[in-house]
């Protein structure tokens, strides 16, 4: 009887643990999606208010918001991909950045223009393939790298995968730095990884490529190549914004448009990973996470499931690498230090591994408050104070303290906020481990089935779970 009292909770889960956070301001906080939405709105409002209060120029404010969206999207995507590995399958991947680097570098090599008269002698060329082909190639390369990492490590216990992946990500970085691989002739093309100088990603503005690709059906109708880009984007959108920002509005719009593209991709990620999670495939992944031997004894070839999950996650990480670093004009190997991997882990831990909504939330919180937040805060405070000169050394900051003047010390602290950020992340992590080891939404209540797990109607007489 009592098992059917889940009528108001679609999935029939919902144990007592979250009773304390109830309905606030008409928003049901027991629903993860509302919580996420509230958070996002709140974050943007906070940034907006902060900007308005200090009188940030409109252009600067818009840039801040565009950037914020970019970081939220990037970290949310990364956390989702990691959630597939760790939250679903229990694969301890601490080599995320290596897969990102592989993605963006391979894309660069595939899509850079062919070496020719326009390129300086020191530079390398590429294969000149369309950017979309390059992106697919980059994702495939990341997936294959994942396979190479997984094959030996999956036979061993879970923690070995961690060692293998972090080593692999460093191997990737050192390979990118290597002189030997920096330039070579492949089938008559002068290509390479560029060594320590990195690679110039001169394959055109990705945003433009995306919009022009999306424009294909419109082109057929209007008989103009790149209609969406030329007419709608440049002609309408940028023009319209130009009335608010008269001076060179395009970069501001670009910023927003690219963030928008990323948010679309994020939506795609969310759908993909939620579908994977709520399916028999994902159910086996979760079973592997819980107890691999049992899953094996139930007739599932767990290694195949693990490898598939790992490769999909790695391909997604490759894509994130491309979308994140591929717009910056060039990449250098030392960007891809393990630090980025740990950022993603922090995001996932905050949100709660095993929950997709939680992953997105963790990514958003990390991006807004730990990653971008302190820098923005510094910006705001400095503007309010009229951009005072900060002491250049610790000694100079400390000396006035004896006279009771703490102002230089504060300025110095503010000036070192990039370093202190890491400290802040550590504190948050420790606090979380103490107070909420499962993260904000780490209750793992997202259903592992593609259909609602209510009692089949044929059998149940008193079924209340018919609300879907």
């Amino acid at each position, binding site marked *: 009887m009592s*098992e059917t009292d889940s009528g108001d909770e679609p999935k029939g889960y919902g144990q007592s643990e979250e009773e304390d956070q109830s309905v606030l301001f008409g928003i049901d906080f027991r629903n993860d999606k509302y919580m996420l939405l509230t958070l996002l709105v709140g974050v943007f409002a906070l940034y907006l208010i902060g900007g308005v209060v200090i009188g940030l120029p409109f252009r600067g404010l818009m840039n801040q918001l565009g950037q914020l969206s970019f970081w939220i999207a990037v970290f949310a995507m990364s956390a989702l991909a990691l959630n597939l590995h760790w939250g679903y399958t229990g694969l301890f991947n601490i080599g995320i950045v290596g897969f990102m680097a592989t993605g963006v570098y391979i894309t660069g090599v595939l899509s850079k223009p062919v070496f020719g008269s326009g390129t300086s002698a020191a530079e390398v060329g590429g294969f000149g393939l369309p950017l979309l082909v390059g992106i697919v190639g980059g994702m495939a390369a990341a997936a294959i790298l994942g396979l190479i990492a997984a094959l030996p490590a999956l036979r061993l216990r879970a923690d070995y995968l961690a060692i293998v992946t972090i080593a692999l990500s460093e191997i990737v970085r050192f390979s990118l730095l290597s002189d030997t691989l920096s330039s070579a002739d492949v089938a008559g093309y002068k290509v390479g990884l560029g060594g320590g100088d990195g690679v110039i990603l001169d394959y055109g503005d990705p945003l433009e490529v995306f919009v022009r690709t999306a424009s294909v059906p419109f082109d057929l109708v209007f008989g103009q190549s790149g209609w969406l880009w030329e007419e709608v984007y440049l002609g309408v959108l940028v023009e319209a914004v130009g009335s608010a920002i008269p001076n060179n509005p395009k970069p501001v719009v670009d910023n927003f448009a690219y963030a928008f593209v990323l948010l679309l991709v994020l939506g795609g990620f969310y759908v993909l990973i939620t579908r994977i999670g709520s399916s028999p495939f994902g159910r086996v992944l979760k079973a592997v996470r819980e107890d691999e*031997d049992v899953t094996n004894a*139930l007739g599932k*070839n767990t290694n195949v499931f693990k490898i598939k999950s790992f490769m999909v996650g790695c391909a997604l990480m490759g894509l994130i690498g491309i979308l994140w670093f591929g717009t910056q004009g060039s990449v250098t190997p030392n960007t891809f230090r393990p630090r980025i991997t740990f950022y993603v882990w922090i995001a996932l831990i905050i949100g709660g591994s095993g929950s997709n909504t939680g992953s997105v939330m963790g990514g958003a919180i990390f991006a807004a408050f730990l990653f971008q937040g302190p820098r923005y805060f510094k910006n705001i405070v400095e503007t309010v104070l009229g951009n005072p000169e900060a002491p250049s050394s610790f000694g100079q900051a400390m000396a006035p303290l004896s006279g009771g003047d703490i102002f230089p010390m504060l300025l110095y602290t503010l000036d070192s906020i990039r370093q202190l950020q890491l400290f802040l992340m550590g504190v948050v992590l420790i606090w979380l481990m103490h107070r909420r080891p499962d993260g904000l939404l780490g209750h793992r209540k997202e259903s592992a089935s*593609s259909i609602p797990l209510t009692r089949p109607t044929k059998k149940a007489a008193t079924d209340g779970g018919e609300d879907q």
Partner: protein
Amino acid sequence: MSDAEPSDATDSETDSGGVTVPDADADVELDAVSESADMVDVPLKVRDLRKTFGGITAVDNAGFEIKKGSMTGLIGPNGAGKSTTFNCITGTYTPDSGVVEFNGEDITGLEPYEVAERGLVRTFQIARELSEMTVLENMMVAPMHQRGEALWRSVFARNDVNKQEEEILERAWETLEFFDIEHLANEYAGNLSGGQRKLLEMARALLTDPDMLLLDEPFAGVNPTLEERLLEHIHELRNQGYTFLIVEHDMDLIMENCEKVIVMHQGRILTEGTPEDVRNNEDVIEAYLGGEV
């Protein structure tokens, strides 16, 4: 007391019309295997099985046969090699030598999942539930060869997947009802009590549509009431045609419920036969019972 069994069994068979739970041919496509299974009277044959760990010979030329539809107990004192034999059969260990044959097929040294795919499914000594999944999700992992286990289908062919999911869900519910734990369906498996976990584990194994179930100490740490219930379920399932091999510590339990008993001692098969035979066997009394009976 042992002749109370059959009558009891037929009893439950007649009134169990509505509870034919593990409806073997319902949805999952491994009929090819189970068809050939019907023709084999002795599904499981073990010959000259041998497994050593360093200098210790855990299983020493063990061999036995299990008849279809029977319930066989494998007993022996601690360290007799029961669990190792069990693990060699189910693929957890690879035997050093010897042959394990199931339904006429040599399955020696196959991976555990390959053994399970062939219809020989085990449970674990300590019930191992998938704790952060609900009871129902635990159950739904089990059916073999689900269409939605293909990654692309789980993403792109949801309707196809959903159709089978509904069948699986229904079977899962029915099996839970059979074991009287359907009220726990949406509870996390980690929150169950020890006995409930044992029930869940057996229910889950059933959903794989096995021909034969290997139960590793199913009654360890189970209170008498639940033990009674578990036994009822096992008998009922046996009457539906499942074959059981049970490793157990509790001698009396095996003697009362199995028609055949295999006794292991120091890695060898000491004797096998009906409970009566075994009970009166001098060697068994010597080695296992210490002359008590």
